[in-house]
């Protein structure tokens, strides 16, 4: 095979396999990402690296040769790009459309390459690939110079916290290996890089197709002093020292309790170094203890460092479970329920400000809401744009609030403890990736005000169990009428109640809100918070709101104690509600005078498993009310 440029010493393998293996057991690992525009030759470069490192076998090479004849874009020559373009559909289109991971190895290092597309619409893939990379290779076509895509990729690389950047000026063969061309691109890129905060990068003139300056310095570029690409990748320092020098942090993944004598906390160390006897603090509870042992299958360790997966046992019986973080006692991370983050939206369905999403960070999963973005970042111009939400592939900055404090670090301090994902509670899709910028408040200052009279005291005095009877249904379905009737009957039973009605709340508390999707979500969130306070005061709360989205109803359910939220679906078909049209609203909506009207041009998501469903076609409001009360007995 390509013996001149291959970087494997087959002689050593053949002669002294033990020496070879010994050498290879001590290799380190470098993960990098390649980014470039559609025709920058990215796949060709990766194919070349695999080929030169002898990662391609004869049967694969035979398939490649026949594929090259069929789909190749390089005439009679082997099209290395076909080695890496994986899925059948995209192979036919000739475009890479996803993130693929490739592997090759040299004498010094093992490499994992994340190959991501250069297409404008695939920010999400690049962000995914960059999240685990130590280094980025940014490809530039020497004929074209720095393009808008180059700027976008560089910005994303910087955003994802990659500190090592290689500028590979490719296709040097097509510009006659001209030094002036290379120097001009270097100057151009350097000015741009500095403007976005990339202070250091290594520029290398290459040809992926011809193999120049890939494994060794090329005679075609005598003006270039080095290093060759592989040489640089082999020698660049990865940031292990920084990670190990930072204070100790380990998110607890799983509590290992095989018997009564052993209670271990399993996790992967996110930063720092730990030894038996070290003082640790559990975050967020703040309890302290000392490390008793670092237990592993290979025996107890005297020390463990960032990156290792271990199991710690502690000297004291402290409360600690999945989602907690074990940290250096003297230098724990912050914990807060409000922070500011830059985030990338990754789902077809745009962000709904105010809606509850699952947020996963380390091993913590909590409910989080995102405020309307402060601004969106145009990845091409890097300008800040005003935005109400973020759509697929958009990047913005917003405030996040979680339903309980979580432990974190700013992303630039620690990727593992500053990177988060958002998960849609209904589709379970991963919809966003966020990087925490800073804490919005010192959680140390935030304490729940302990009150002497508890919610049980309030409820006990009223001789009832607090409840929120949440009526949902289309406009005109009969929610208010039935809720009123239920309240009247409860009043006659000497119960302490309060009815929150949609129209009334909108005249006061929520008069700043309109009827856009975001405003509707906020409307329901506020009503939910008010209902919760009233339930804390011991009341039976009745609410009559269309509340069209499942996610918001579930958000309110999650605010309340188990069993306190009673979802009542006033199940009136659209035709019936529209025929009634008590307030004349359907007519206005049909004629276009009223926008975003539920059931007409805005969706209604019916409850899937309501506690109570009432049919208003067959029942009078009085019968419906009686039916509901029968189902919530006993009241105490």
């Amino acid at each position, binding site marked *: 095979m390509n013996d001149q440029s291959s970087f494997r010493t*087959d002689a050593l*393998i*053949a002669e002294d*396999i*033990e020496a070879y*293996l010994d050498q*290879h057991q001590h*290799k*380190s*690992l470098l993960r990098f990402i390649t980014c470039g525009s559609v025709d920058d030759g990215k796949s060709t470069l990766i194919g070349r690296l695999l080929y030169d490192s002898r990662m391609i*076998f*004869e*049967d694969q090479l035979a*398939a490649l040769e026949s*594929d090259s004849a069929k789909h190749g874009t390089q005439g009679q020559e082997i099209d290395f790009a076909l080695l*890496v*373009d*994986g*899925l059948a559909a995209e*192979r036919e289109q000739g475009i890479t459309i*996803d*993130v*693929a*991971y*490739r*592997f090759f*190895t040299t004498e010094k290092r093992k490499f994992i390459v994340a190959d991501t597309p250069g297409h404008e619409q695939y920010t999400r*893939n690049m*962000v*995914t690939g960059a999240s*685990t990379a130590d280094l980025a290779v940014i490809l530039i076509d020497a004929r074209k110079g720095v393009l808008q895509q180059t700027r976008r990729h560089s910005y994303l690389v910087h955003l994802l916290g990659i500190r090592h950047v290689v500028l590979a000026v490719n296709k040097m063969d097509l510009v006659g290996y001209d030094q002036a061309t290379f120097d001009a691109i270097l100057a151009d890129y350097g000015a741009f890089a500095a403007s976005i905060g990339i202070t250091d990068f290594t520029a290398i003139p290459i040809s992926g197709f011809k193999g120049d300056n890939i494994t060794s310095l090329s005679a075609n570029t005598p003006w270039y002093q080095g290093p060759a690409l592989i040489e640089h990748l082999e020698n660049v320092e990865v940031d*292990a020292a920084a990670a190990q020098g930072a204070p100790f942090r380990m998110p607890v993944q*799983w509590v*290992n309790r095989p018997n009564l004598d*052993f209670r*271990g906390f399993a*996790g*992967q160390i996110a930063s720092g170094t730990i030894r038996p006897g070290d003082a640790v603090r559990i975050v967020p509870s703040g309890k302290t203890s000392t490390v008793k042992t670092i*237990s*592993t*299958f290979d025996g107890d360790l005297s*020390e463990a*460092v960032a*990156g*290792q*997966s271990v199991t710690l046992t502690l000297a004291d019986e402290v409360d600690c479970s999945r989602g907690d973080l074990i940290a250096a006692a003297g230098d724990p991370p912050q914990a807060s329920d409000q922070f500011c983050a830059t985030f990338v939206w990754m789902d077809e369905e745009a962000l709904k400000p105010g809606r509850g999403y*699952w947020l*996963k*960070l380390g*091993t913590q999963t909590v409910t989080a809401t995102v405020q309307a973005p402060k601004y969106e970042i145009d990845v091409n111009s890097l300008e800040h744009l005003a935005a109400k939400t973020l759509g697929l592939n958009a990047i913005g900055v917003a405030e996040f609030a979680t339903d309980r404090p979580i432990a974190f670090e700013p992303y630039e301090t620690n*990727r*593992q403890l500053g*990177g*988060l*994902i958002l*998960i849609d509670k209904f589709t*379970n*899709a*991963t919809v966003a*990736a966020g990087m925490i910028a800073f804490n919005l408040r010192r959680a140390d200052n935030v304490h729940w005000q302990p009150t002497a009279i508890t919610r049980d005291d309030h409820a006990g005095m009223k001789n009832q169990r607090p409840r929120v009877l949440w009526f949902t249904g289309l406009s005109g379905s009969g929610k208010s009428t039935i809720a009123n009737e239920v309240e009247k009957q409860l009043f006659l039973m000497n119960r302490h109640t309060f009815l929150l009605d949609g129209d009334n709340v909108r005249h006061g508390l929520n008069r700043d809100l309109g009827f856009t999707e975001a405003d509707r979500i906020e409307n329901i969130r506020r009503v939910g918070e008010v209902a919760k306070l009233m339930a804390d005061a011991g009341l039976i709360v009745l609410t009559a709101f269309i509340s069209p989205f499942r996610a918001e109803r579930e958000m309110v359910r999650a605010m309340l104690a188990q069993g306190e939220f009673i979802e009542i679906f006033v199940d009136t078909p659209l035709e019936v509600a529209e025929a009634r049209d008590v307030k004349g609203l359907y007519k206005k909506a049909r004629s276009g005078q009223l926008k975003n009207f539920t059931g007409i041009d805005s969706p209604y998501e019916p409850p899937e498993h309501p506690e109570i469903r009432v049919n208003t076609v067959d029942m009078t409001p009085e019968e419906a009310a009686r039916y509901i009360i029968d189902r919530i007995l006993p009241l105490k």
Partner: protein
Amino acid sequence: MRSLTHLERLEAESIHIFREVVAEAENPVMLYSVGKDSSVMLHLARKAFYPAPPPFPMLHVASGWDFADLLAHRDRTVREYGLRLIVAENEEAEAQGINPFDTGSALYSQAQLTDPLKRALTAHGFDAAFGGGRRDEEKARAKERIFSFRSASHRWDPKNQRPELWNLYNARKAKGESIRVFPISNWTELDIWQYIALEKIDIVPLYFSKPRPTVERDGMILVVDDDRFRLEPGEQPVTRSVRFRTLGCYPLTGATESTATEMNDIIQEMLLATGSERQGRAIDKGQSASMEDKKAEGYF
């Protein structure tokens, strides 16, 4: 400062993945094919939960045409480590007339491997299954996520995969859906062998060369593992010194002639080899996108 080696980083990542699944799934299982990748997986699982045993059972899909040495190794391992083993097989294969000699490879792998696997996953209600797939094996694998979702009918949709960032895995799923999890996605064949050597992991003796009765067919050397092997007229088993790089059903798995009887010899041969490990598998032949189609159907 202590610099982690590539194997230490891979090991730590795999252990992290095993623990995430056990923490978040309700009823996980590990697909255990008894091959070298499965042996590494089992070793990693034992490390991840030590001193507890792996908190999930092993599921072996047996085709009925497994090497005798492989079954013996499986039973010994299960006994030694106190594992729970579930064996899935197509009990009607004989009645259906399915066998590796007459049945085409697509139907054979569907009836003997894919269908029994899907049936077992459904019957036991497993919501997460660990598999030993590696991204370096095949082009379709290179793009598969570590957590790979399957619909209630076990189908994979390559166009609708969840992005995986940092070491954060989204394991949430609807009722009926399941996840296939590949903890050794980022390992290569060389990493596997180096790790087996370094950790002294016990593997099936079929990986080591020894004289075995063989016949040569369609350019493949097949081992006559038992008397069910159907010889063609005039065919006579010949004793050759052979070993395997990968293990499947014995009448469909090609052996290589070799003198490698020790671990280092095997690694040496592998490093100097000119064919990929899947070359010895009849099932993977055909169109180059065929693995992707099979995966969409539910093949592991």
